[in-house]
């Protein structure tokens, strides 16, 4: 053993083992160093909300530039039933279980946000995954829950899913758990601990979990109605939970500038008490952090609304997704309505600094087509390679909201696009040769939403 290795292992009181025995990577930096370039992606595709008589599916997308089928959807795992609205999905195990011998990152838990049906897909054959289990809506409703959203694996097996509504599609939502065999287990929290729910992320070394708020399913599912905002039916709070005790320790009200806080992202470093959330409707990014034993949230990025020629109201940017690069240096995100992907230097977490952006798609994007394919919607779900050098995104937000803001997407389907990132220079360049077209499929044009890599990504993994 070299001196360097002795120092590295000796310095980690939390980690007795130098090597991981379970899934994932020992540290975020290990994920960067030890991972190989992503050669395929899992992307949810959907027909819910169209007249295409076909179920939603998980697409396997070839991302290997040396492959003959590069940029093509090489397999589709169809759900057993129509109407799910597949949305977000996650793994049975991630780096949080890297010391749990016997666990493997193998099963994708893929919920239907409208149907409340939860699917389990086995990726042992990663190019041809297989649907192996379905949890039916009636069993989910029996827990007085509906509308599953974010899937995370607490360390050591099992899965936790944020649920946006009760069995009637009203409030309160809550959290559902699956056991280590991915069987329905029960509720994680005490019903009523929170009213609204959306995304969550936990930082186990600080015994904290943070959750955000969208709205009741009966509010957001039929579409976005400004009268619901005026009636206070959309969320504006963050909840900081005691992770072990499963209780809300503190609620932070983001106020009018923090309407519809969606994706909550802690920095990847397990020692960090910093994170970000995108207040989509107010079009602001908030930095949240712990200081003097309390959690605080401060607006750190404010996207200005823009006037659209001939329209009555200024158009908000609608930053609908954010992520943090695995090295914790950059915050990436998308402004769905304006048509922009951006990266901010967050090396000083309280003072993000714009590094670069690409104006593409949406209402104001400079780039209106890629490889001859017209872009009919803005950038939405983003995913970054583990090495931070390739940013990919899709263009669908939610079927009913797509129909309101980008109605043409129902006819043409979504696209998946890519930018090459230079994480040393802080620059992004659109890859003009990269296009995955979800409009060109046998059953008809499909929408595309969340993207995941088979070996974990910048929004899937947590470190203990």
């Amino acid at each position, binding site marked *: 053993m070299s001196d360097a290795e002795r120092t590295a292992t000796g310095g980690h009181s939390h980690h007795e083992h130098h090597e991981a025995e379970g899934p994932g990577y020992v540290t975020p930096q290990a994920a960067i160093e030890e991972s190989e370039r992503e050669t395929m992606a899992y992307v949810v595709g959907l027909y819910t909300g169209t007249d295409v*008589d076909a179920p939603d599916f998980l697409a396997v997308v070839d991302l290997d530039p040396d492959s003959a089928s590069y940029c093509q959807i090489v397999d589709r795992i169809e759900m057993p039933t129509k*109407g799910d609205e597949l949305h977000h999905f996650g793994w049975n195990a991630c780096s949080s279980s890297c010391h749990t011998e016997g666990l493997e990152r193998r099963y994708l838990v893929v919920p239907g946000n409208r149907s409340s049906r939860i699917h389990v897909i086995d990726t042992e054959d990663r190019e041809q995954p297989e649907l192996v289990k379905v949890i039916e809506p009636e069993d989910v409703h029996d827990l007085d829950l509906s509308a599953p959203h974010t899937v995370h694996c607490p360390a050591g097996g099992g899965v936790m899913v944020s649920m946006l509504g009760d069995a009637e599609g009203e409030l309160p939502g809550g959290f559902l758990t699956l056991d280590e065999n991915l069987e329905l287990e029960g509720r994680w929290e005490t019903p009523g601990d929170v009213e609204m729910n959306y995304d969550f992320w936990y930082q186990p070394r600080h015994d904290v979990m943070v959750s955000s708020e969208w709205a009741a399913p009966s509010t957001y599912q*039929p579409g976005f109605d400004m009268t619901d905002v005026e009636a206070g039916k959309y969320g504006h709070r963050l909840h900081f939970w005691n992770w072990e005790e499963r209780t809300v320790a503190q609620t932070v009200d983001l106020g009018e500038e923090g309407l519809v806080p969606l994706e909550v992202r802690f920095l990847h470093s397990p020692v960090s008490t910093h994170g970000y959330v995108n207040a989509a409707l107010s079009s602001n990014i908030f930095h949240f952090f712990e200081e003097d034993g309390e959690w605080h949230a401060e607006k750190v990025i404010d996207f200005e609304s823009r006037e659209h020629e001939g329209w009555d109201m200024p158009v908000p940017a609608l930053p609908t997704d954010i992520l943090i690069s695995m090295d914790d240096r950059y915050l990436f995100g998308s402004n769905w309505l304006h048509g922009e992907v951006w990266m901010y230097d967050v090396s000083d977490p309280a003072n993000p600094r714009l590094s670069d952006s690409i104006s593409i798609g949406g209402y104001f994007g400079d780039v209106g087509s890629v490889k001859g394919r017209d872009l009919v919607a803005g950038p939405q779900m983003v995913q970054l390679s583990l090495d931070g050098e390739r940013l990919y995104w899709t263009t669908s937000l939610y079927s*009913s909201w797509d129909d309101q803001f980008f109605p043409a997407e129902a006819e043409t389907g979504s696209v998946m696009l890519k930018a090459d990132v230079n994480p040393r220079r802080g620059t992004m360049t659109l890859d003009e040769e990269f296009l995955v077209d979800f409009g060109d499929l046998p059953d008809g044009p499909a929408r595309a939403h969340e993207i995941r890599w088979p070996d974990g990504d910048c929004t899937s993994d947590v470190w203990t």
Partner: protein
Amino acid sequence: MRVDLAWRDGRTASVSAAPDEAILDAAERADVPLPFGCRIGVCGSCTAQLREGGVEHGRPPHALKPRHLRAGYVLPCVAVPTTDCRLEVGADVPRDLVENPFV
């Protein structure tokens, strides 16, 4: 009950609903595909507009606001015909429920 379905592109179909059978279930039994999502009256994906006849919602139609109900919108996933009826159906009907607020 006889339920006539009309799409905005001109297609039509006719299905028969058993007593207490929701319109979506009756259509599925007849292999007539309609859009749907939650099947509990919450998400609005199946929204149709009643043109003739009557229906009763077997569960509260949460997806529809009073202004939608007044305009005759119904949810086939939980709506049971009370008379023979005629509905406008298809994925473009729920798009009536909300508009782009910035335009």
